[in-house]
């Protein structure tokens, strides 16, 4: 005889405290890395030859696509088919780049012309991410639950979205985009566990970031961030290229020779880390050219302006953070190996910089820590990151001026609103132009999106009240809503990069990928969606049992109906329908979740009950 199993009402089904695997990826301009946490230790994954760094180079030759070292090896012989530093072009348009090597596709979109056809920077980044993903899949047995990808703190909204798109294209589930200096601070913070104020100076191949953070009681708060998205190690290489060109009397180099000279300059820069001077044999670049000797002092002098640009950003960041000084300085990025960097940065902050973690690996290691936290692994350290938006967000107003709505260095997530009105009598539509940047005039800021609010009732100028709300999520991505108060006419836009790929294109590319990968991928995705649905249903049932009194009868029915439909969808095999049901149910439970969170605020504050609060309810 089979006894009926009776479940405790509302008790969540027992989930085995299974470890989840999440990756941290440093998608760099020059090199990319992947790391993960195992038994509380961060492991940086290496290729078959033991190298942690994957050169961020992709070769699109007639015979096929190559990624990393084999691609880099072809940079000299096939420069046009070999894309390096693609990160510099992510989320940008052709006009901003202004180089002739690239074609301008329809809508002004930037793409590289290769033997494989036009390739967008997003696709190049996706190829790099895909290679890192394969590296991870070969090394671990668990499925990958998600990834944290790092971006320069100074990346604007369009650049962040382009990075997300690249991940989507490579089949990775992005848990979070994390600012590179913040990731580095996490790696150091968890290493030393020292509380206090930390400055992170991050000079990568193509970008420079400076961030100031405070670590206190397990909360890492970014106080201010700044930088220069057009300053990186590449610029220092160029200074050396200039020295070599001038002193070696070189001129009119073809693309292959130019690349060769750049490689020589890079090698010379690296040699100058330890040596006081280096002699570069230029006859391998141009036969017959004389050798040139460059001293470290000479190199430092040529780079003085670049250094000053980064130091000015440091001083501004200190002022923005509102701190008198810092307790620690951390150097990140391979370019900080140049001895002059530690010297000048140490002077500005009055502290000798820390360099105990490999500057090439520290960002990926911090990202892996954060990824482990986000998938909820039990052994993960109890640490919370509070990041900020790097650049102010606003809208264009009369006269081409910018009305700032969310100032830079505002902690995210954030929701901020501002009221606007019409300029003309009888105006029924309003164009909302969303911009990002610090300048007063629209043309000096980056244009993110434009949308129109229609259906404003005809009134005299200045009578309409239009509330524009900016919401920035924890990834630093923006959503904008405009609403007219008297009619409730609303328009809503999720900011999309004007020069990236649109959703349909991504969907098409993903479909092509599935066909290629066969049914395995689909089966895996269906399983994942079913697990998500089961967890969602179990969560709602236990929440209803615990706090069901927070809902009225109608709300309760609505939620239960959505849950039942979700249960039915999970029985089927239609993955799109299941995902839709997950979304609908989640949506239906958001208000309930919000009320439950409000109820637990007292618990969060240690149950502090204040007499002064009693009877005080004027709001």
């Amino acid at each position, binding site marked *: 005889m089979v006894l009926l199993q009776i479940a405790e009402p509302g008790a969540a089904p027992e989930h085995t405290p299974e470890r989840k695997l999440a990756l941290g990826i440093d998608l760099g301009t020059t090199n990319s890395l992947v790391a993960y946490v195992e038994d509380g230790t961060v492991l940086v994954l290496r290729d078959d030859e033991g190298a942690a760094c994957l050169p961020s180079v992709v070769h699109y030759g007639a015979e096929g696509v190559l990624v990393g070292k084999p691609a880099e090896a072809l940079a000299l012989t096939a420069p046009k088919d070999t894309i390096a530093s693609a990160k510099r072009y992510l989320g940008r348009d052709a006009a901003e780049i202004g180089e002739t090597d690239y074609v301008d596709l329809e809508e002004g979109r930037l793409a590289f012309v290769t033997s494989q056809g036009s390739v967008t920077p997003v696709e190049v980044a996706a190829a790099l991410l895909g290679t890192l993903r394969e590296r991870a899949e070969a090394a671990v047995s668990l499925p990958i639950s998600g990834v944290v990808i790092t971006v320069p703190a100074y990346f604007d909204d369009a650049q962040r979205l382009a990075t997300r798109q690249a991940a989507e294209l490579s089949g990775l589930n992005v848990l*979070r985009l994390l600012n590179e200096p913040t990731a580095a601070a996490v790696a150091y913070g968890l290493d030393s566990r020292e509380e206090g104020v930390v400055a992170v100076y991050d000079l990568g191949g193509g970008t420079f970031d400076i961030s100031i953070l405070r670590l206190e009681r*397990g909360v890492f708060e970014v106080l201010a961030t700044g930088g220069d998205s057009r300053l990186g190690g590449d610029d220092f290489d160029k200074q050396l290229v200039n020295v070599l060109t001038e002193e070696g009397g070189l001129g009119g180099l073809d693309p292959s020779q130019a690349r060769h000279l750049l490689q020589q300059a890079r090698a010379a820069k690296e040699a100058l880390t330890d040596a006081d001077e280096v002699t570069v044999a230029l006859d391998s670049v141009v036969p017959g050219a004389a050798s040139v000797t460059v001293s470290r002092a000479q190199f430092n002098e040529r780079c003085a302006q670049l250094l000053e640009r980064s130091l000015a950003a440091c001083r501004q960041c200190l002022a923005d953070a509102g701190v008198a000084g810092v307790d620690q300085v951390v150097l990140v990025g391979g370019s900080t190996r140049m001895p002059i960097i530690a010297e000048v940065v140490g002077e500005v902050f009055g502290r000798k910089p820390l360099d105990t973690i490999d500057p090439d690996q520290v960002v990926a290691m911090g990202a892996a820590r954060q990824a482990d936290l*986000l998938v909820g692994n039990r052994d993960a350290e109890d640490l919370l*990151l509070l990041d900020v938006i790097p650049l102010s967000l606003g809208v264009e107003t009369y*006269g081409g001026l910018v009305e700032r709505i969310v100032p830079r260095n505002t902690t995210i*997530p954030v*929701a901020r609103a501002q009221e606007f009105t019409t300029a003309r009598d009888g105006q029924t539509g309003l164009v909302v132009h969303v911009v990002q940047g610090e300048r007063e005039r629209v043309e000096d800021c980056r244009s993110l999106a434009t949308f129109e609010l229609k259906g404003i009732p005809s009134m005299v100028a200045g009578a309409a009240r239009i509330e524009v709300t900016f919401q920035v*999520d*924890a990834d630093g991505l923006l959503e904008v809503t405009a609403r007219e108060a008297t009619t409730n006419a609303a328009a809503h836009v999720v900011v999309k990069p004007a020069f990236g790929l649109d959703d349909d294109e991504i969907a098409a590319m993903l479909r092509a990928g599935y066909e290629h990968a066969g049914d395995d991928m689909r089966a895996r995705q269906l399983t994942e969606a079913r697990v998500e649905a089961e967890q969602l249903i179990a969560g709602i049932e236990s929440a209803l049992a615990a706090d069901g009194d927070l809902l009225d009868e109608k709300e309760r029915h609505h939620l239960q109906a959505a849950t039942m439909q979700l249960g039915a969808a999970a029985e089927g095999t239609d993955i799109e329908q299941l995902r839709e049901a997950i979304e609908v149910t989640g949506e239906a439970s958001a208000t309930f979740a919000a009320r439950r969170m409000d109820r637990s605020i007292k618990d969060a504050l240690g149950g502090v009950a204040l007499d002064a609060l009693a009877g005080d309810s004027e709001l």
Partner: protein
Amino acid sequence: MPVAIEGLPTISRDYFELFQLPVDFDLDLDELAGRFRALQRKFHPDRFASQGVGERRAAAQLSADINSGYRILGDPVARAGFMLERLGRDLKALEREPVEGSFLMRQMELREALRALETSDAETRAEVVAEARALMDEAVAGFRAAISNDDLTTAGGFYVQLLYLKKLHTEVAITGEPV
């Protein structure tokens, strides 16, 4: 093209309640920071990253409210405005009301003096900075006294003075002369 309307948008929740703090203009900033961290540790969207979309959305909203509350309660001028608003005062209407003539004169003189700071000697400079501080302290004290006596009209007047002074401080900070 949109035209901006001056003033703050209407608030959505009682931040004193959110932070479980007594409604009092004088608050301990360290205590506030501690409560801010405790709330974010519990409700930040990162804590719900592997949960359902409902929880994630609710957490994002609550976390944004906690950030706003921390910013508003942490800044004396914003805190003053919030205290008036939660008692039903319309801040936009308040900002349109005329300001007391003697205050206007003093702050205009101060503005001139601050503009001339670059060319003035150390003694004058110290005097001007002291005057700016004194004006701010007076307005704060005035607001504190009025609000604790439930005198919203007087409190509103001091709040508008605070707004003027804050603007003055920001302008001066831009020209590189900290007050």
